[in-house]
């Protein structure tokens, strides 16, 4: 039997959907969806509706910009690391 949806929370400025479900054994199961993810066809309708409501174009643009900045920072740190660190034996 599939897990039963218990609640959908909205987390971070980027409106991540934080989903808590109840398992067959009565415990919790959690997962997170971000606005750059494509929801599965068999995703719960409540989750689809919440995503539709929260994941505005503005939110998607902000998330996309954040990811691009993260990527640029990571690349910059990598480039500087390669430049600055002495080679073996120096």
């Amino acid at each position, binding site marked *: 039997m599939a897990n039963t949806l218990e609640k959908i929370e909205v987390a*971070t400025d980027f409106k*991540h959907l934080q989903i*808590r479900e109840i398992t067959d054994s009565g415990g919790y199961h*959690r*997962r*997170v969806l*971000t606005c750059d993810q*494509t929801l599965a066809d068999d995703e719960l309708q409540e989750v689809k509706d919440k995503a539709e409501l929260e994941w505005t174009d503005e939110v998607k643009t902000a998330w996309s910009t954040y990811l691009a900045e993260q990527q640029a920072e*990571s690349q910059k*740190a990598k480039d500087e690391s390669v430049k600055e660190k002495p080679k073996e034996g120096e």
Partner: protein
Amino acid sequence: MSGIIGGAGSRSGIIGETEIDYEEGEWTCTPKDASGTASSSTQTGKYTKIGRQVTVDCGKSNLSTSNLSGSSQLRFYGLPYPADAIAGGHGYVGTMAASWLGSMTDYNIVPIIPASQSYFILAYSWNGTYWEYGNCDKTVHNGSDYQISITYNTTS
């Protein structure tokens, strides 16, 4: 400071004068490539959350990545909470044991959760100079066994 966080099934507790959320449960670890194609090798892991601190674990034998793009970054989706921002840029670092690795057998590989993300990637220090992230045909790949544990902060 000391206190009590209930017993099994407890949902919150008091440490000193601070009420702290407590929760434990399961999450489903799903390896994907960067385009979002998923491996069939999903695995249920456990999590424990105390306040903002979350600890997750997960492991899998004979991982299948044969349908993933080999040159694409390997990501393990499904974390129960998104990571908070972290100083230093790379993300929250965990520990990993693995066998039957790809081409990066001589490197110390660690799982990292990037800030604000709900997946972890595998990182290794390339020749001791800079971080490199594992692709689907390197580090952990088709046929590998792995076990990870990561503790990180979430946003609330």
